[in-house]
């Protein structure tokens, strides 16, 4: 394993852990808003970490640029969709979970 492997492997593993955490949140959280929150945050950070790990291993700057572009697009789309779904849920009267 080269040096870049040693740097990339923990990034990739942490990214996947974030993805798994997001899915646990998706399954366990009590209402739409909390699930939306868990999903968007953890999936985006997880994707960022995975892409960082892949970027360390990439063969050219072109690939790094492509990976960053993908991350930006996913961030943009994820944040906008989270807002739209949450606003729509509020307008349609989905109750927020209270303890």
């Amino acid at each position, binding site marked *: 394993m080269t040096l870049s492997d040693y740097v990339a492997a923990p990034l990739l593993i942490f990214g996947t852990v974030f993805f798994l955490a997001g899915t646990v949140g998706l399954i366990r959280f009590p209402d739409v808003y909390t699930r939306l929150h868990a999903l968007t945050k953890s999936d985006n950070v997880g994707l960022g970490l995975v892409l960082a790990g892949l970027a360390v291993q990439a063969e050219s700057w072109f690939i790094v640029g492509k990976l960053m572009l993908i991350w930006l*697009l996913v961030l*943009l789309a994820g944040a*906008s969709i989270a*807002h*739209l779904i949450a606003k729509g849920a509020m307008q349609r009267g989905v109750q927020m979970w209270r303890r």
Partner: protein
Amino acid sequence: METLTLLQWIFDALTGLGLLLLAWRALASPQLLRAIVLFVAFGLLMAIAWVRLDAPDIALAEVAIGAGLTGALLLAALARLPAAEIVQNGADQAGNPNYAVRIFVWLPLVLLPIVAVGLGYAVLSFPPSSEGLSVEVAANLDKDGVSNPVTAVLLNFRGYDTLLEILVLLLALLGVWSLGGLPPRPAVPAGPVLDTLTRFLTPVVILLAVYLLWVGARAPGGAFQAGAVLGAGGVLLLLAGWRPHPGFSQLPLRLVLVAGPSLFLVTALITIVMGRSLLDYPPERAGILMLFLETAATLSIGITLAALFVGERPRDKGN
């Protein structure tokens, strides 16, 4: 077996099982929204399956159509249906079983495993490594103008099939147009978030389509994928409330719609007039010819798909 192969086997097995699970739950679901969501998820997992089957061109098309167009089309159709659920047809009101309908349920269940076993036997009795036609394709690639064998097959060796497919797409649009109009829907303005998202994504979509078209010459990509991406971008624009200029919907729209198929047809006629067989390009012009055809095809496919989403033909001026 070694760890890597084992991991790949488990990955493929899980993908296959996931596809079966999604298909079953999508078909068995009495609520239509759940069925649609599961079907879209099925399409996305299918893209991963194509990737594992070494077919990135098909995966590109599956992603563009499954992620962009299928979900939007089905959801827009769902919005127009009255609230309804699928009723079980196996029994009438009193609970007496309706045998005629039940046969239609059980017959496929019995036939499908037989077909599956037959297919499995046929596939397993192939010789272990058969080249298929890849040898001939590779031998003829150099006089063809592109180096991606898939594009070469689609546009040059089997250009006739692509011509017919584009015509079929146009016919589908004509069929949809002939069904008559839709009741008008109140125009809700898009909020600032959706507006900004669309304003950012539309140029990206156009760039991506051009990139896919250009890179299709030597890597997975090509006219269908680029056209599907354009179509999905058009759907996004339409969803965000954008409408084309009324003057565009009359003649210019129809011109763009037929540009792709007619360019193909004209090329086919020219090759016949030149004395060659149908769509047999002269080798030194093959590259540039395919570029023209692909560009026209991309535009036509994109606009056709977006027009399919609108669903009704543009109203004539003065109506």
